[in-house]
């Protein structure tokens, strides 16, 4: 008899890795379109070059490790795409290459490839870049013109001490300064609807994450809609927190994961000097995923014990 050992989830439907990645990339198409619409050609170049360099790095690592090529499952392309969507519209090409080397080469492949990485590769690379090159990573540009080649520098709605007034409508459509893919809430919601329809992502993480941010921004006397619609909170909720590899597997674990990430996001936003809170919060919580899973299993067992033990 042949025994096959595999890590969960044990997929039995027609959804395989390739299909899932393709669906996520499809779900990102509205985001890409809107970023092209608001930031013009520079954003497009960043996205294309990031995807290409991610694929190149992945195949290079496969060749060095003398393993079969793993680029065709699309995970590398997706990582490159997600990283590009977190970068400012104008990013030098060499910086994109360094980011992808860090994302694929170190965060993903050093831990053993797809399914073994502890941290979200795209966000880890974004974090690496924003610590390494803070000046590049915090130079944002106004989003107003199509086919622009020299964008106008601007501060984001979240910048400290910015006198910029951003309306909710602007935030919703994405007509603000910010990272390439994280400004337009409309496009992100379109993509999220597609993902939910295809049953690719779990609503628990996103819901508890967004709910926590909503409740805590009310408690700390901030505008909850502004907090949710700015700085890529929605993007992280649907595309980052729901990453299969770096999310807890248990239901309670997922809810706790979303809750703590939301708490961290709000605390970093309100009481720290960093303009961007999502990468820090998500990466920090990624480290806690095994613990949350253990806690989730423990709590599940406790609950079932309570429910199904017959008391005399």
């Amino acid at each position: 008899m042949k025994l096959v050992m595999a890590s969960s989830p044990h997929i039995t439907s027609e959804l395989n890795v390739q299909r899932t990645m393709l669906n996520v990339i499809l779900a990102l198409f509205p985001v890409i379109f809107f970023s092209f619409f608001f930031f013009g050609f520079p954003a497009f170049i960043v996205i294309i070059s990031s995807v290409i360099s991610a694929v190149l790095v992945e195949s290079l690592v496969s060749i060095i490790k003398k393993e079969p090529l793993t680029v065709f499952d699309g995970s590398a392309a997706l990582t490159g795409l997600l990283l590009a969507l977190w970068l400012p519209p104008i990013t030098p090409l060499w910086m994109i290459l360094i980011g992808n080397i860090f994302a694929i080469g170190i965060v993903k492949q050093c831990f053993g490839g797809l399914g073994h990485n502890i941290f979200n590769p795209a966000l880890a690379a974004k974090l690496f870049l924003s610590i390494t090159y803070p000046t590049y990573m915090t130079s944002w540009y106004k989003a107003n013109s199509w086919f622009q080649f020299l964008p106008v520098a601007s501060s984001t709605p979240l910048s400290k001490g910015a006198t910029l007034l951003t309306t909710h409508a602007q935030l919703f459509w994405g007509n603000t300064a910010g990272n390439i893919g994280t400004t337009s809430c409309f496009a992100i919601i379109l993509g999220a609807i597609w993902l939910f329809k295809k049953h690719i992502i779990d609503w628990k993480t996103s819901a508890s994450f967004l709910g926590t941010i909503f409740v805590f921004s009310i408690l700390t006397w901030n505008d909850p809609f502004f907090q949710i619609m700015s700085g890529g909170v929605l993007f992280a909720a649907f595309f980052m927190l729901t990453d299969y590899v770096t999310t807890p597997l248990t239901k309670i674990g997922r809810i706790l994961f979303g809750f703590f990430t939301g708490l961290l996001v709000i605390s970093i936003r309100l009481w720290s000097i960093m303009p961007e809170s999502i990468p820090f919060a998500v990466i920090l919580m990624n480290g806690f995923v095994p613990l949350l899973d253990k806690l989730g299993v423990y709590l599940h067992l406790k609950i079932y014990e309570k429910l199904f033990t017959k008391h005399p």
Partner: protein
Amino acid sequence: MGLCPTLAISTSALNALSLGIATVVVLVSSNCLILLIKKDLPEKLYFLINIFIIATLVTIIELLLKAISPTLHNSLGIYLPLLVVNTLILERVESTTQHKDLKEALEDGVEKGLSFSLALFLIGSLREILGSGTFFSIPVLFNYKPMFIMLLPPGGFLIMGFILAYLNYRKNKNGIL
């Protein structure tokens, strides 16, 4: 061993090298000193007197460095006095009880101290080259945007991880380091 100074101080080649030299001097002299007075020591006070001797030597080094080069002393900061509780030194001094004679203790101190400072120097120079594009404060990389993260603790861990990975790779390949 002694990870705290390794990661905190190895932001430049000069810092790393000076801390390495200080470690070698302290290690060798404390090894020899303790070996000389070992016979007359009561068992209970052994550890206490070890620490006492190391602390004295570290203080001497620190005062010397302050007199010779105040800027270097400033940049090393608290990590020079912290050599007193460096686990590497404590562990080696502890093991001097097994040594028979002075020559052996001397050899042991020089060997361990030099390998520690070599590792420190390697990490320090890599971090300086990547983090600020200089080597002993001489610019070596031109048209280079410094990677600021290499000067922070995460960069130290990254570099150390890569060096350890390389050593492991060689170990797996050849069976020896």
